[in-house]
């Protein structure tokens, strides 16, 4: 490493003053990202002897450089990667020079790992995009440049690597440089620098290469050491999302969080973004004593002068420039899951310290990452980017992503697998949300239900085609009707002739189908009716959506459980025969999944009794619980 410091205290003081640059490297498979990082670590003398020995040993075993040290092996940490020779996850590396500290996110090049690249980009200030000089600008290069810009990175370096393999040719470099500039022009980077390098041999990495006399710019490391990426977060309006309420005893109530924008001083007025309530900062508490002021990046605990109702998810902000509050947004969305994004499906949305349920109400367009053109589409697949309208179950405080990453970036979480399935960036709030008010009515659900002498509810029959849903639902309705109850039956096939005639059978259409039926059922329940819904409704998420639309106790899920073999045998409409012959696509149970209910209120095993018996059981179940 470096020579031992002569004056330790001075040395430590210098260390404190060093700025930190977080950057990511991205590029296509085999462009040499890992090799470049290995080279930076090696040439800046930051490798330990035991690492180098292990590297030499591994290079002989797996190396692709014919006995020379293969720097990529240093960085590709996971076993699978070493064997396949590609980087499949984000690896973080740390190094420092006399001028700066660096955190490098080494991100995957292969298309199926684009989401990992977005992950690396979300925490970086600069991107080094690698291009193989022999291959030029590829689809993947454009995609990476676009995603990097989408995630708000303002500075890029285009490193034209393997320049040694094109004989250090200036025309080759110029061509690539020009092609990239034309594409990147539309992405609005604050700065872009193009450098010809050879990661394997070190040309223009640490020092300027004699083999590229035509290149007048700085070598890569020089540039990384000196570029100013300051986003002036501290001069922006004050924002502190409350993470945790610190209440060790009755005399102390502090709001803990990390300041994500601006600064705050003792005595200043702050506003709770959602409620609009004002208070003054009484103390800024830290374990090392109270502070007079604190600014962006600091984790503090704020005590206010008044008893204001504040909990996790609230945002303390500057009174003069509060964040917007809305429950509907226009946003960019990058989809990160194998399972496609379905408009209307309920997801969890986490932004700063708030988690709310919400749905993508519409996909305005998809973006072709090669041309940046807008394409029409109904769903998003893995690694696709779209522009969406998002609707949440509750209003939240936010800023546009371009103003503040922490206040405008959100993740989308699947409600069943809990996986992170998408990353979104809010563009702006939709005004519509604040202007559509719920009309309060004098005659309400309770009054209507009382008049009919029943408790309104939805009996939601779910099961495979041919399982006997409609047969049993019909019988149940008949019994209720003859008992003088007020009912309505929504049947899958019948509704598709009218309300949902524009929908097909893709997953996206099935979600919309159920959403409309659930909304219609909700209106009937509001009218005081007992609604019977007989729909295959194959997905748990949508049945849950329907359940959450209704009040407590109003949703009764009835699983009509018939083995698929039996359904095929019955095949009342001849559909299974057609589906098996390939004449019908996306048929539930054949080439589209059915997700069985986990917590149905009632399960009907049709193999065990006649439909009339089951219908009687359903009615008794309702009677026992006071619905009728």
């Amino acid at each position, binding site marked *: *490493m*470096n*020579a*031992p*410091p002569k004056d*330790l205290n001075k040395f*430590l003081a210098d*260390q404190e003053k060093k700025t930190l640059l977080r950057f990511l490297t991205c590029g296509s498979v085999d462009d040499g990202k890992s090799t470049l990082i290995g080279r930076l670590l090696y040439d800046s003398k930051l490798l*330990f*002897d*035991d690492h180098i020995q292990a590297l030499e040993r591994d290079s002989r075993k797996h190396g692709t450089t014919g006995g020379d040290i293969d720097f990529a092996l240093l*960085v*590709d*940490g*996971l*076993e*699978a990667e*070493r064997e396949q020779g590609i980087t499949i*996850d984000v*690896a*973080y*590396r*740390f190094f*420092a020079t006399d001028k700066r500290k660096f*955190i490098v996110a080494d991100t995957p090049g292969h298309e199926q790992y684009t989401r*990992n690249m*977005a*992950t690396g980009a*979300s*925490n970086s200030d600069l991107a080094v995009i690698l291009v193989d000089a022999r291959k030029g600008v590829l689809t993947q290069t454009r995609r990476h440049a676009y995603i990097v810009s989408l995630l708000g990175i303002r500075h890029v370096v285009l490193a034209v690597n393997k320049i040694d393999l094109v004989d250090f040719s200036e025309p080759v470099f110029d061509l690539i440089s020009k092609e990239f500039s034309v594409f990147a022009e539309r992405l609005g980077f604050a700065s872009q620098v193009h450098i010809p390098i050879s990661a394997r041999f070190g040309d223009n990495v640490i020092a300027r290469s004699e083999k590229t006399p035509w290149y007048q710019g700085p070598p890569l490391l020089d540039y990384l050491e000196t570029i100013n990426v300051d986003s002036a977060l501290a001069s922006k309006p004050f924002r502190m999302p409350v*993470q*945790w309420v*610190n*209440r*060790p005893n009755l005399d*102390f109530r*502090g709001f*803990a969080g*990390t300041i994500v924008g601006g600064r705050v001083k003792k005595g200043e007025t702050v506003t709770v973004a959602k409620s609009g309530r004002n208070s003054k900062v009484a103390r800024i*508490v*830290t*374990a*090392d004593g109270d502070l007079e002021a604190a600014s962006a990046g600091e*984790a503090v*605990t704020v005590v206010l002068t008044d008893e204001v109702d504040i909990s*996790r998810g609230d945002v303390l902000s500057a009174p003069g420039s509060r964040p917007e509050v809305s429950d509907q947004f226009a946003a960019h969305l990058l989809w990160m899951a194998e399972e496609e994004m379905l408009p209307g499906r309920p997801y*969890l949305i*986490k*932004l700063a*310290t708030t988690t709310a349920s919400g749905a993508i109400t519409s996909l305005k367009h998809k973006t072709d990452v090669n041309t940046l053109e807008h394409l029409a589409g109904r769903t998003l697949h893995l690694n696709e980017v779209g522009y969406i309208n998002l609707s949440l179950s509750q209003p939240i405080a936010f800023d546009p992503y371009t103003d503040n*990453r*922490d206040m405008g*970036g*959100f*993740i989308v*979480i699947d409600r069943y697998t*809990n*996986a*992170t399935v998408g*990353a979104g960036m809010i563009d702006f709030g939709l005004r519509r949300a604040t202007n559509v008010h719920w009309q309060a009515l004098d005659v309400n659900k309770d009054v209507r239900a009382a008049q009919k002498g029943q408790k309104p509810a939805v009996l939601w029959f779910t099961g495979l085609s041919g399982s006997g849903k409609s047969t049993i639902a019909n019988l149940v309705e008949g019994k209720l009707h003859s008992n003088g109850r007020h009912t309505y039956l929504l049947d899958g096939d019948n509704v598709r002739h009218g309300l949902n005639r524009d929908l097909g059978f893709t997953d996206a259409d099935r979600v919309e189908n159920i959403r409309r039926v659930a909304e219609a059922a909700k209106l009937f329940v509001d009218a005081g009716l007992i609604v019977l819904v007989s729909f295959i409704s194959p997905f748990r998420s949508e049945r849950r959506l329907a359940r959450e639309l209704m009040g407590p106790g109003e949703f009764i899920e009835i699983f009509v459980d018939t083995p698929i073999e039996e359904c095929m045998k019955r095949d009342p409409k001849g559909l299974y025969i057609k589906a098996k012959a390939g004449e019908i696509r996306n048929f539930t149970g054949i080439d589209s999944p059915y997700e069985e209910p986990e917590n149905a209120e009632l399960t009907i095993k049709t193999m065990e009794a006649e439909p009339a018996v089951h219908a009687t059981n359903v009615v008794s179940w309702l009677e026992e619980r006071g619905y009728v």
Partner: protein
Amino acid sequence: MREVAAEFAHPVMLYSIGKDSSVMLHLAMKAFFPAKPPFPLLHVDTTWKFREMIAFRDATAKRLGLDLLVHVNEDGLRRGINPFDSGSSLHTQVMKTEALKQALDKYGFDAAFGGARRDEEKSRAKERIFSFRTATHAWDPKNQRPELWRVYNTRINRGESIRVFPLSNWTELDIWQYIMAESIPIVPLYFAKKRPIVERDGALIMVDDDRMKLKPGEKVEERMVRFRTLGCYPLTGAIESSAASLEDIVTEMFTARTSERQGRLIDTDERASMEKKKKEGYF
């Protein structure tokens, strides 16, 4: 850390007594001030830790007034697992990895803080800050949740858990500088002192108690040594050093030519062994 306290029902902090744990604990004390950290400390004791570590552990918990849970794999003890006869690999598997899983299951913790850093080892470089574990505590490096901005996905189902690594982006030098700047107490073993040492397989092993049997030709010598990292004493190599103060240690670091985990005999006992251990549930 506050994110964990706010989002999880039963968090715990894994406390290994080393310098990273000391820093992590110090950060927790600061993050929740004036309250105490709203979770207990858990130490998985292999029964082969340095005696000075155990003394320091108990003193620390007492000084800070924190709950300390100590878990030992009793089953492993009964089976007589030990680092000398069982080999480092089996010992670590049973007394650390298995023991940790037992402890997490026993108390039903849904989130566990660990002091691991990304700069320590290659497979740790890819670890998330909030790292998902299945109900059997397994780690699937190919199926990790993307982690964007500072927005952490804390959602889990019953039985699953999250390991949280607040020091992910710290380097060894950062740790020492912070210890100096904040005057954080650490185990005296980090400072050079004359200690009884045996040289075995090229490593300097401190004879911490009479369970260590000498092999033919081995002899105990008093040597001036210190430790860069702490684990089970029979598996932790010392380095010869005269660095007796924090200033000396930081100065020494700048001339170091080997990484800190080099003293850890368990990392190299099989190729890609850390990744393998992590998949099985090791921290």
